[in-house]
């Protein structure tokens, strides 16, 4: 066989593998879709919506942490900004339809994300985390002081209203399927992003930033874009959440929330697509189950212990460990 034959053979093998990978992705997406379509018939829709909102939040966070290598410790700011903006607008302007309120909340979070990114992107490692934390604390105090947020009480009674002025979202099933459509769209978008030409550059930056620079990439610009997309989706998660619960509160802006999304992502599997979804599902469930029982004062220490356990003994998270296992045993 000539050298060019070997070359084209290998190229064919690679294309075949890509096709197989695409089929596998499609199948997993299909399973996820069916599960989520049927879920409200066996579980309480409001609880499911809570999971989906946090799952979207974690997926957004993971785009930055898992796929770009930037650990933000200030993502609560975007969740809260989306939530407050949407909550305030829908409460005070009855002419707005629900989706307009959500879009507005998302956009404000995107702009805030750009601001955060421009101020933090040059910092490396722990300094980046610290700058994002400091900025998020500023945002927190802004919300504490501002009259429109209702301070410690939060913003209550946000009307769910009607989607496109047509579909009544007071109905929990309608609301659920709306949340589901938004979640799936974002999930597929992130899936697309990480395998796109842009996603390959992010991967390169994450794995060896000086090398990416030496190959002519202005890495700061790529990181800023990743940050803004991540903040936008986190804001969308907050906006949806405020509509679902008809409430926007300081909890969402607190640094606890920035920590919780890190926990969700790590437990589920950082840098995997399904990991944050699974992690959010687990953490929301654990919090709920413990909150009901005699251990209700122990929620934070228990979550803390899970965090430590994950970091020390299964760093790749649940999905990451499963992937490793499959790779090892099925070649």
């Amino acid at each position, binding site marked *: 066989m000539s*050298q060019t034959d070997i070359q084209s053979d290998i190229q064919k*093998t690679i294309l075949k593998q890509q096709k197989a990978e695409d089929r596998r992705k499609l199948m997993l997406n299909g399973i996820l879709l069916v599960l989520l379509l049927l879920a409200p018939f066996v579980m309480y829709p409001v609880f499911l919506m809570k999971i989906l909102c946090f799952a979207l939040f974690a997926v957004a966070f993971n785009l930055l942490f898992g796929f770009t290598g930037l650990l933000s410790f200030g993502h609560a700011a975007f969740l809260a900004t989306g939530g407050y903006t949407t909550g305030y607008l829908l409460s005070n302007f009855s002419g707005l339809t629900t989706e307009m309120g959500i879009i507005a909340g998302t956009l404000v979070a995107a702009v805030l994300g750009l601001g955060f990114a421009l101020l933090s992107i040059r910092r490396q490692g722990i300094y980046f985390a610290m700058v994002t934390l400091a900025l998020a604390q500023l945002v927190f105090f802004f919300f504490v002081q501002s009259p429109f947020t209702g301070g410690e009480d939060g913003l209550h009674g946000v009307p769910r209203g009607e989607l496109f002025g047509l579909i009544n979202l007071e109905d929990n099933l309608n609301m659920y399927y709306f949340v589901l459509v938004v979640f799936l769209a974002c999930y597929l978008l992130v899936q697309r992003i990480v395998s796109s030409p842009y996603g390959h550059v992010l991967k*390169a930056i994450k794995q060896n930033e000086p*090398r990416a*620079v*030496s*190959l002519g990439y202005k890495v700061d610009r790529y990181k800023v874009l990743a940050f803004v997309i991540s903040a936008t989706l986190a804001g969308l998660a907050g906006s949806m959440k405020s509509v679902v619960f008809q409430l926007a509160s300081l909890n969402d802006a607190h640094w606890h929330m920035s920590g919780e999304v890190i926990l969700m992502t790590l437990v589920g599997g950082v840098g995997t697509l399904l990991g944050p979804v699974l992690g959010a599902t687990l953490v929301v469930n654990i919090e709920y189950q413990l909150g009901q029982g005699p251990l209700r004062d122990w929620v934070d220490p228990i979550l803390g212990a899970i965090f430590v356990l994950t970091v020390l003994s299964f760093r790749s998270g649940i999905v990451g460990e499963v992937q490793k296992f499959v790779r090892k045993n099925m070649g």
Partner: protein
Amino acid sequence: MSDQYVLETRSLVKEFKGFVAVDDVNLQIQKGHIHALIGPNGAGKTTVFNLLTKFLIPTRGQILFKGEDITPMKSAAIARKGMVRSFQISAVFPHMTALENIRVALQSFEGSSFSFWKSGASLNRLNKRAMELLDSVGLTEFANTMTVELAYGRKRALELATTLAMEPEILLLDEPTQGMGTEDVDRVVELVRKAAEGRTVLMVEHNLSVVSKLCDRITVLAQGSVLTEGDYEAVSADPRVREVYMGTGSSGERGAVTAEEAAQ
């Protein structure tokens, strides 16, 4: 007559908090040459590379690329202009396949690097060129292997192919043979010779037998300044070079061994 030089530095200085790592260095790299930068450990060779590619900002001095002052330019822009470096510690993307490593470089000149909505399959049009580049360094059969699993010598070959994918006018190689056995060293010598066809190479190299085989001109750096410059015969006969670099009285070959050992 400055246009016979692809790369020039004028009174280049780098200070680290009072310590002068690069001291008034004037380099002139002639077009088409393989030019060696040698000197003992800590002489400032890597720092010079970092200055040329703006991974460090010079304290003073000027850098000219094809007669143009590129001193204020940023790293990425310099790479796009045609001066591409490799690193002393092999620089690859470990969790990508060899083919994907090369594609990252090829993609750098495509308009699509911000296209987050496009499918990954759109990068497949780069596969053919990437395979040719892999073939040129003997890595065809490893195209689909994760880079982290490649042996050290192959990683360095991949790094070279990735650098060549940028079609650089001048190639800066920081110790391409470091930590290699004799067989791998011979292969790298051949690769560099091939890569140098039609371009200029500036390389840091401790192994003097490699330098003697490949290089048209040699600059010796010691404690941040240029000690001497010339071809291999002239430089290796210079007693001052023997003193700082080879240890007094030793031959070039032995010097190469000691220097290599010191680098471990």
